[in-house]
């Protein structure tokens, strides 16, 4: 993508964990994903940091002139200082810009949806009002939060791939295979509660990782595009599950039922939920695990060597390889992690609600996850909001059917969000780039002026 320069601080000592300051700082600046408006260092770090930083944000021509003030060592101090004050401004700008993308996308999507409603001769506003009112009910909120937890985990799985420049479309298949295997193990193993839950979760992660790992190995050894292989693996997952769930294999057909299940989990391995009220029901306990996963995702990607390697490889495989990262291993590892997280996506429902994998286990979560990861810009907090938004649209739209509208309005809106997200992020990115170039230009000019002034009396 754009931050090839980011690999720069990596070479040499960084690998030995030598300059923790450098490595620590670098991942920080791209901490929120695509929005790589690099931050001028606020800590009075070595002045060398500042040039390395500013070009990173754009990889634009502005990069090369940025080198010059650093060389004029006498000016470095003051430059860093002015950089400090600019840093604050930058981070506020950056937050605004980061929010601007999704907000713009949402506004556009809402307007377009209203247009569709108008075109079909309906009120362009009432559906939103109905949905918001409906979502004011506690039981619907519980439903939204519970659904969002599955979406969130699926979106994290997708985002891990995105960060690595891998498009894991197979999250859906990984999720289903993992959920089924975990349900099967859970129903047939007799362990004390917590151990059993741990076992189920671990099995889910391992199976999800295995299913994604197939695509990973195909890519690293044979160069098969993960897009193609994961789509294929989705189809294979469907057939494999259909086969395994037959009563002749591992499935169970409860008497009098036309459904097939994997058998029920013993009650001891149900994941306790947070009881809200009798009407509203329980928030799955796994919601909190999902939040934990989001925090872990942020920390691992943003604050560790591994996360940095991963993002560096995603940004430019060759540059990462040049600085000593084993790109192939990173591809495989990130595919495995993505799959493991995808495996977790089925756990909220399995452990909190259905307690079995049956023919009507929810499908399509992996694809929704792609939407959400895009919407949340691969950022843990952004994805959380994205997951809640999509879950809100899903659940609240159900009320439309009772009020003379079609709930498919929400589906139209989700589609429009995806399109407008892509367009608005690009628009905002270009705007930010132009702004930054101008700012850097101004700063350099200012720095150049001070330098000349200082140099003259000397």
């Amino acid at each position, binding site marked *: 993508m754009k931050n090839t320069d980011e690999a720069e601080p990596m070479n040499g000592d960084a690998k030995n964990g030598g300059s923790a300051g450098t490595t620590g700082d670098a991942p920080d600046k791209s901490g929120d994903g695509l929005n790589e408006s690099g931050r001028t260092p606020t800590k009075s770090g070595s002045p060398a940091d500042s040039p390395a930083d500013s070009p990173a944000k754009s990889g634009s021509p502005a990069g090369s002139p940025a080198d010059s003030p650093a060389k004029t060592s006498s000016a470095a101090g003051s430059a860093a200082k002015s950089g400090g004050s600019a840093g604050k401004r930058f981070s506020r700008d950056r937050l605004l810009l980061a929010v601007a993308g999704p907000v713009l996308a949402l506004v556009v999507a809402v307007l377009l949806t209203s247009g569709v409603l108008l075109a079909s001769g309906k009120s362009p506003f009432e559906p939103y009002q109905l949905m918001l009112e409906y979502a*004011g*009910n506690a039981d619907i909120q519980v439903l939204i939060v519970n659904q969002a937890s599955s979406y969130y985990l699926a979106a994290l799985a997708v985002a891990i791939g995105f960060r690595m420049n891998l498009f894991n479309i197979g999250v859906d298949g990984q999720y289903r295979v993992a959920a089924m295997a975990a349900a099967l193990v859970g129903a047939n193993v007799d362990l004390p509660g917590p151990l059993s839950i741990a076992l189920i979760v671990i099995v889910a992660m391992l199976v999800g990782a295995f299913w994604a790992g197939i695509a990973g190995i195909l890519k690293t050894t044979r160069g098969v595009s993960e897009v193609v292989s994961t789509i294929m693996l989705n189809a294979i997952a469907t057939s494999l599950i259909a086969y395994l769930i037959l009563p002749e294999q591992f499935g169970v057909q409860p008497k*009098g039922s*036309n459904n097939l299940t994997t058998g029920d989990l013993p009650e001891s391995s149900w994941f306790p939920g947070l009881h809200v009220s009798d*009407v509203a029901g329980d*928030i799955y306990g796994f919601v909190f695990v999902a939040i934990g996963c989001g925090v872990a995702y*942020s920390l691992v990607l943003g604050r560790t060597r591994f996360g940095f390697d991963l993002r560096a490889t995603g940004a430019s495989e060759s540059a990462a390889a040049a600085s000593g990262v084993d790109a192939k291993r990173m591809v495989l590892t990130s595919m495995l992690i993505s799959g493991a997280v995808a495996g977790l996506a089925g756990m909220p429902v399995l452990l909190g609600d259905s307690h079995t994998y049956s023919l009507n286990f929810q499908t399509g979560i992996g694809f929704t996850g792609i939407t959400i990861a895009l919407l949340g810009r691969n950022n843990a907090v952004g994805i959380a909001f994205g997951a809640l938004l999509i879950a809100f649209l899903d659940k609240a739209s159900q009320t439309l059917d009772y009020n003379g509208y079609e709930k498919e309005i929400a589906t139209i809106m989700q589609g429009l969000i995806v399109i407008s997200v892509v367009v608005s992020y690009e628009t905002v990115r270009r705007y930010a780039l132009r702004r930054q170039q101008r700012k850097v230009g101004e700063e350099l000019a200012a720095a150049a002026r001070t330098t000349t002034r200082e140099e003259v009396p000397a």
Partner: protein
Amino acid sequence: MRRVSSIAVAGIGIAALAFTTTACGGSSSDSKKDKGVAIAYDVGGRGDQSFNDAAYAGFVKAKKELGVKGDDIEPSEGESDADKVQRLTELAREGHNPVIAVGFVYAPAVKEVAKKYPKITFGLVDDDTVHMKNVVNMVFNEEQGSYLAGVAAALTTKSKTVGFVGGVENPLIKKFEAGYVQGVHDTDKSVKVKVQYLTQPPDYSGFKKPDSGKDTANGQLDGGADVIYQAAGDSGSGVIEAAATRGKWAIGVDSDQYTQKGLAKFKSKILASATKAVDEAVFNLVKSVKDGKPESGTVRYGLKTGGVGLADSNPAYQKMTKVVEAVETAKKKIISGEIKVKTTP
């Protein structure tokens, strides 16, 4: 600084989340008006010319003859059990009685919601697992009707090859296959049966892909089949179209498809239909609730009660006296118990 801010943002996010769920104490379940009947459809929804439309027909009949009101609601694709619970809860809390869930996929949801609304009667079509006082399990002997379809097919085919197209390969549709194949083979051992399914669960799209039904039927027709029986919901219309267009026989399912408006163009080639009186079941349940004596437990619809059967609206079929006779004989034998029809292939 950034570390602090991102943690703060996360904290605010979580707090906001917790706040929204706890602050608004209300729930969507607090209104009490009589809204009449509620029907929640299975995948495919209304307009599938078969299963769901049969339920709809029963609903319409009840509206007309009993003067009841009501609503009917379609599902979303790939939804979870929680969504079904939400749908049924919503219908129950609005004051619908009875609430009829069409399709076995609703079983877990009915189980959960029926507990919360003990005064409302819940109907569950195609499943016999929820045994509560206010739940009616409406089940059918699909294999018996399909057996008769098999008899008719075996006696009509000239190429000694008949076809079966199932929508989704699940235990329910396998019952149709089992009865049909047995019916064919009991009648004429030399007839070959081509069996194909459009999708495997959990991919339920096989019930709503007429184009895919058409392709599969064309494949069977190319392979020499000249009578095709389908149990594929909405996809079945594609099967009928393919067979009729090439002048071969199709056998309808669930509703009497000869009389379906959407299939009028092809009706002369719809030999017969293996009916499944979901409409009758729905009507009976609504009537029982209206009369103040709601049904309860398991209500089974078989050949004996006319709950399943072979509809013979097509005059061309009525003229095939030999076939009609053989079907009648088979019907009597099934009712008397002389013929036991398998429920699994």
